[in-house]
């Protein structure tokens, strides 16, 4: 094996890594925003309200991200209505297609994490809200959501790392993220092992950074919180 190619192409790999980081950051933030209402609706007892979030979550957690990307990128553009719509300027860009697919995907997982967190809040704390006469909105704003954000952290950190790994699939729709860049480099050098290993190392490093950040944040949370753990949903 010849690792001099790694040295030579390292700057380009870093360029790709930067794209990956952007993709992940953007979709994770958007995903969280989408996830919140979905999680809240999903908690409802009413089938009319929880039906859609249920199906939404089920679809995005039950199918491979690869399929979702292809559906958004190639599938949607097959239809003239889509191409003639005002959305086309966004949907024509692979970058935005990736963001859309990732956001939809991660929001389904994040919604489940939020739901788990809200439901992990001990019933007694909820009752304590009721007996001081809080309305439902006050209860969510003052106690449930702040509590849930604390509980959610470890699972959410995991989800970000899973999203980082999932983002490698952006390379299948012409995006030069870290994996895409690696594949492009390999197209010239024909040294797949060396370049893929190097890319793997960079992914590893990024996830370490994410883990370290979350450790810090969690430490601050644990100042006051007893450990409440929730089930971490799966990912694919």
């Amino acid at each position: 094996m010849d690792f001099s190619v790694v040295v030579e192409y390292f700057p380009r790999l870093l360029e790709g890594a930067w794209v990956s980081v952007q993709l992940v950051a953007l979709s994770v933030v958007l995903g969280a925003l989408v996830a919140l209402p979905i999680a809240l609706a999903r908690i409802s007892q009413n089938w009319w309200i929880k039906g859609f979030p249920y199906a939404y979550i089920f679809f995005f957690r039950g199918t491979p991200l690869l399929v979702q990307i292809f559906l958004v990128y190639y599938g949607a553009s097959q239809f003239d209505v889509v191409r003639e719509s005002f959305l086309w300027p966004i949907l024509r860009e692979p970058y935005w297609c990736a963001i859309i697919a990732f956001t939809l995907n991660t929001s389904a997982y994040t919604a489940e994490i939020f739901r788990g967190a809200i439901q992990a809040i001990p019933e007694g704390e909820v009752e304590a809200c009721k007996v001081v006469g809080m309305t439902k909105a006050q209860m969510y704003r003052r106690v449930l959501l702040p509590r849930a954000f604390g509980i959610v952290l470890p699972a959410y950190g995991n989800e970000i790392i899973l999203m980082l790994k999932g983002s490698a699939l952006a390379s299948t729709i012409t995006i030069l993220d870290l994996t895409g860049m690696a594949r492009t480099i390999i197209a010239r050098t024909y040294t797949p092992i060396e370049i893929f290993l190097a890319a793997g190392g960079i992914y590893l490093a990024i996830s370490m950074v994410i883990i370290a950040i979350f450790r810090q944040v969690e430490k601050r949370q644990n100042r006051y919180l007893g450990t409440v753990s929730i089930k971490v949903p799966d990912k694919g």
Partner: protein
Amino acid sequence: QETIRFATEGAFAPFNYMDNTGKPVGFDVDIAHALCKDLKAKCEIVTQDWDGLIPGLKVHKYDAIIASMSITPEREKVVAFTNKYYSGGVRFMGLVGKNFNLKDLSGKTIGAQRATVAAQYLEDHYGKTANIKLYDNQDNVYLDLESGRLDIVLSDELPTYNWLKTSGKGGKFEFKGKAFLKTDRIGIAVRKGDTKLKDQLNKAIKDIRENGTYQKINAKYFPFSIY
């Protein structure tokens, strides 16, 4: 009886593509079978994504690549090629009625298949000015051209010629400008040092050219000689 394991891609009609039973077919595949027959060898054909073909050959996943691969100096650094079994050349293609200044495509979105001669040409000549998009396979290039994501594509002339003739979107797209890189020769790649196989294949290519098999296959796909 010896077995020769050929790899092809399966997404480069009419040279190699999949029929709806999941079997690879096309000009390249026909040639492979003809060569094997000539060499009295058993033919095994596997498929592999384009950018994995050469890496796969290097790690012995198969013995030869017959996938409309151009003989280029870069590739010759890592694999060896037989003599050509047809001649290539690339050409731009785009929407009918849309005109381009092919010398200067700045600001345009150009598509090509990753790790092809066309892709490399684009990167080298338009990389700084145009927006170049590289795809895993040629079919996806066509899909994005149809959807309007691409302004123009560059690819091998012959498969594009075929696509223009057969695609359902017939008549909407046309070649832009003349073909170039006409000296491009398409060969079969084998591992470096596998000279025995290379020599056998070269002999077989010569044989089928002489006994008319090649011409029959050619006629199946193109009304003109592509050698």
